[in-house]
């Protein structure tokens, strides 16, 4: 097993990963810092100047409701990134717990969990989300994050289970057991740290997936509800003015594409660092 620090270090020496990390830092920094300098997203809009192209006053133009697109891209970024981070943290945690339980206890527990995971993986995540969200009028942000997080752990639990099965009968785990370590200690102190690599890859790639899902759900009217700005919601709002004010949807779409691209670059480099064979 390659230590996690070395995996990250080796991934960090790869060009694409560096580019990805740089883009991601820029996006995060922009989302954190830019709203401080810009007008508040809820400030009285300048209704004389709706749907204006980019200009020195409004670097990304204004949307059909005269709101500054740059301000909304930045504050929408805060929401989109935070939603993705929390949802992915949630699904990785659930996936790790179920994977550990299934792999460690085996038998009926394993059979039950893995049969459910098999079935859940057969339903495309988008459809699962459509079914869960379609009936919910103006869903609270917390519930949205919870549902997105709860539908993303199936693949992760398989990964962790495979890792646990591989390690369960190794000498060091037997030694720990012989020394009297309980199941909790073996799972969290001895097995989980060895599964951190694959978990990190799954989490990184999961961020990109959630950002795209949030955008898609917003397009269908099921995403983060206005007035909370989000990148997906902005594209949805600007759908009608695609021809007359393209900047209102081009910039949030670019923000999505750049973010997803950067996390995918990082995730790929991490995966290659974990498994140098495939690169």
């Amino acid at each position: 097993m390659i230590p996690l620090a070395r995996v990250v270090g080796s991934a960090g020496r790869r060009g694409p990963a560096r580019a990805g990390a740089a883009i991601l830092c820029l996006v995060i920094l922009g989302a954190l810092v830019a709203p401080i300098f810009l007008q508040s997203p809820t400030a009285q809009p300048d209704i004389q100047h709706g749907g204006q192209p980019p200009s020195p006053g409004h670097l990304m133009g204004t949307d059909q409701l005269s709101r500054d697109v740059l301000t909304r891209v930045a504050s929408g970024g805060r929401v989109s990134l935070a939603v993705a981070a929390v949802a992915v943290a949630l699904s990785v945690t659930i996936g790790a717990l179920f994977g550990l339980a299934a792999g460690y206890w085996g038998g009926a527990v394993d059979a039950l969990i893995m049969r459910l995971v098999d079935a859940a993986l057969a339903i495309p995540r988008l459809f699962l989300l459509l079914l869960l969200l379609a009936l919910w009028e103006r869903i609270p942000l917390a519930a949205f994050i919870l549902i997105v997080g709860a539908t993303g752990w199936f693949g992760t639990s398989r990964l962790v289970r495979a890792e646990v099965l591989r390690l369960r009968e190794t000498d060091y785990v037997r030694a720990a057991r012989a020394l009297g370590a309980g199941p909790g200690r073996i799972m969290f102190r001895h097995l989980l740290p060895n599964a951190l690599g694959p978990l990190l890859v799954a989490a990184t790639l999961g961020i990109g997936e959630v950002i795209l899902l949030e955008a898609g759900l917003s397009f269908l009217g099921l995403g983060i509800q206005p007035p909370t700005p989000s990148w997906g919601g902005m594209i949805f709002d600007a759908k009608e003015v695609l021809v007359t004010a393209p900047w209102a949807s081009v910039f949030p779409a670019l923000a999505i594409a750049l973010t997803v691209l950067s996390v995918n670059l990082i995730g790929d480099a991490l995966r290659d660092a974990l498994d140098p064979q495939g690169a």
Partner: protein
Amino acid sequence: MSRWLLARGLHAVSTFILVVCLLFFLMRAVPGDPLSRLSEDRPMAPREIAALRARYGLDQPVGRQFAAFVGGALRGDFGTSIEYRRPVTSLVVDRIPATLLLGGTVLVLNFTLGLWLGVRQAVRKGSRTDRALEAASLSGYSVPSFWLGLLLAWLFAIHWRLLPPGGMHDLLLDPAAPAATRAWDLLRHLALPALTLSLVSIAATMRYQRVAMIEALRFPFVQTARAKGITEQRTVWRHAWPNALFPVITLFGLWLPVLVTGSVFVEQVFAWPGLGSLAAGAVSARDYPVLMGTSLLVSGMVIIGGLVADVLYAALDPRIRHA
């Protein structure tokens, strides 16, 4: 082999039964039921709502509803659409040809172009071509499919006026027009949705093929082929490539969910009358039975895709079916 096949088939069937149960109980777990949204849009008398509830069986105990749902599903009856007032089964069946046409086109595009590009990348691993193709495919994968669709529709249909912006047929076209004219019309309508879906999904094919081909090129027999003086073209395509096709089969199972998900957005953008736009429309109409029916069908397709991939694997590699 037949024993292995039977076990694998039974596994697929039991997975589908579990999916049916899972979907039903998820639906029940969400606050509100299909009809609570209906009365939000226009006020209804409690008596009316009660009558509707009785009609859709929502006033029954959960156990009986579940039995009715499973019993219906086994008979191919998924209830009645709230929006169209037609059986879900017939609605879904009507949409299947359009989805198969779009999905099939994307499949062919993806596997011919994606495999070819992946092999090209592997042969020139690390070169500028390799990196440029990698960047291009990853970018396609990172863009929201609906936005790419809107962009392409704007460019090709509105700006350059080259292709129709949506639909499957020209409404003004005479239905008695010669078959060639109608086929050309269909092809023009198919071009943009197929292009969009291919662009967002080709990355996976290329990467799988690239990695598999790099492995295949490491085999000693490739060196032998080269040493014997066989042309590089023949070495790559006749000697190495067949050995790099094997892992690509896995894609078959992985790829269907991606295609189905993408088609929801792409079909919606281009008003392509397939399953995806049916599902997207059902979301805005809160048409729960239709959403349920399409989800079940799509899950069934994913399960069958996985089964086909496994059978292909076993047919090509005896180690798997004897394991």
